[in-house]
């Protein structure tokens, strides 16, 4: 199958998932039959308002968060040359959640806004993980990296969990962040995310050749005149920014950054130049599908997006782990 056909198929899947995310909801006057009409024709009806004001922002946020997190996961796996690396395994997701939790519980510590707090949390956690694992300059040991990530993640999440014991209302606020509840997002939140996703995609494509060279090993990389440290640093920074922006908009959605690059490698091969657009599309598709499911599980009430993603991601992680053992 040619590359173009595979991209087209993946894009079609994303469109179908987006349509599902738009069509499913408690109001019965929005359906598959009239969704396109409602999207593009302002007939002044409440159904139109439902689609444009409530469901569309949510669909956009779900898709963009998916794309961002998948790209972040891919960058981390390239940088660490470790297929297990992802935002949640390296503690970056949890660090971003801690940034948000601090801002919500102690408003006086808030720097600029929640986006910035989440990005600071993500960068700090990523920096800590990489430092424990041997730093960006030295040799990154796979086991040490994963252990460091688990440590940083566990510590960050323990701090987030501490806020659950605080007063009801505060803990409910933090919980709705941590479980990635996007039921009340508005169009204004999709704008910055789209910007980050566009920048992230462009930066990933610029780094693609560097990622490819990194996969050959540090020696080969230096032999080709590419400084592996620079690519590593830029890749890790990109991952932290994309994760932080996503967490600020939706909360820590786990497993997307792990599952999507894995699946895409099976279908698109190892070349990052081919992988990057596929991973962005795949991430969007997966989270859109999870969003549609989050509205169905307890219909007409909702299950937070983060819960659904974890339900999809955890079994996949198990399969990957079993396969990895067989390969060893």
């Amino acid at each position: 199958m040619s590359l173009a056909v595979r991209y087209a198929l993946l894009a079609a899947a994303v469109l179908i998932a987006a349509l599902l995310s738009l069509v499913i909801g408690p109001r019965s006057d929005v359906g598959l039959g009239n969704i396109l009409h409602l999207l593009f024709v302002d007939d002044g009806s409440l159904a139109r308002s439902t689609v444009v004001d409530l469901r569309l922002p949510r669909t956009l946020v779900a898709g963009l968060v998916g794309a961002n997190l998948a790209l972040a996961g891919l960058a981390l796996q390239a940088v660490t040359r470790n297929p297990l690396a992802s935002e949640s395994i390296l503690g970056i997701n949890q660090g971003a959640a801690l940034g948000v939790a601090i801002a919500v519980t102690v408003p006086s510590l808030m720097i600029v806004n929640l986006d910035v707090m989440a990005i600071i949390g993500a960068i700090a956690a990523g920096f800590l993980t990489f430092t424990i694992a041997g730093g960006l300059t030295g040799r990154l040991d796979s086991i040490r990296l994963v252990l460091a990530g688990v440590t940083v993640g566990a510590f960050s999440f323990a701090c987030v969990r501490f806020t659950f014991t605080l007063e009801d209302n505060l803990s409910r606020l933090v919980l709705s962040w941590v479980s990635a509840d996007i039921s009340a997002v508005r169009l204004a939140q999709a704008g910055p995310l789209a910007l980050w996703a566009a920048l992230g995609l462009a930066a990933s494509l610029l780094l693609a050749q560097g990622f490819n060279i990194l996969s050959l090993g540090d020696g080969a990389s230096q032999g080709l005149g590419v400084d592996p440290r620079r690519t590593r640093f830029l890749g890790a920074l990109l991952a932290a920014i994309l994760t932080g922006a996503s967490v600020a908009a939706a909360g820590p959605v786990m497993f997307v950054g792990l599952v999507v690059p894995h699946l895409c490698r099976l279908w698109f091969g190892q070349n990052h130049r081919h992988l990057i657009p596929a991973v962005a599309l795949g991430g969007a598709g997966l989270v859109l599908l999870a969003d549609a499911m989050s509205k169905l599980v307890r219909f007409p009430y909702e299950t937070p997006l983060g819960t659904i993603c974890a339900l999809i991601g955890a079994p996949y992680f198990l399969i990957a782990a079993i396969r990895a053992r067989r390969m060893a």
Partner: protein
Amino acid sequence: MSLSLIRAAAAAVALSATAILAAPATALEIEHDLGKTEVPDAPKRIVVLEYSFVDSLAAVGVAPVGIADDDKRDSIVPAYSEVIGDTWKSVGTRKSPSLEIIASLQPDLIIADTSRHEAIYGALSEIAPTIVFDSLTGTYEVALKAAETIAHAVGKDAEMAARLDEHRKKMEGFKAGIGDVSDLSIQFLIDNGRGIYLHSPVSYNGSLLAWFGFKSNMPAPDGHTYPEAIVQTSLEQLSEIDPQIILRGKYVDPGLIDSWVGLPLYDNLTAVKSGQVVDVAAHEWSRLRGIIASEVSGANLVDVMRQLRD
């Protein structure tokens, strides 16, 4: 000494020993949500872990020594502090009260919530006899029943019977003041700035509003768990439920709802179009339950309905 005399003396000793051992058995056995517990006669040092238990004690003029007041003393509203004074010690949050502080108060009775404190029931029971009632997810009727049992446990049966008589008269008065509302649908909700949470028909507020005769458009869930009693809801779902009157308790200002003003879906809600969105005190309505709390809500509702009808 003859053998019979020794026998008689031994019997006397045994008898008095039994009497001493049996002394606690004269204590009350209270049946509650997590079993039966022996409670000493007229306990003096009581620790309560939910606001509704403060309500029950205040209704019969008993002051607890410790309250899980979420570390905010003003969460104990004047309606309570006028009766119980201001000498209680805070034992932390309702969600995770400090066992250490509770123990340091040397209580002889602890009153806890079924869903919140089931996990620490054992630890609480080691500190003092602990009785447990469903405050968080119980209905108005459940709250009244718990109040009666609590009054029994603290030896205030007569006072509670008189108070409940007075309560019923007051509530009938409020009901008359509210008038016939059987064709009006109403919904109480909480807005915390990030989400809105509807108190469903199986919640305390849902059942209280039903007691006053209001309708609810919200489908009644099957169970009584927390997510079934307090249901997070989107604007889209609210537009489907579309109550005629919305009672709104805001924990932050501006709330999430304020950001919806101008959206056709919000502006076309029946309650919004007819100007029947009424702000009520979030803390009183959503956290306080019981005899005194329901009277406060009742008086509040009379005012609200008078305003809406004018």
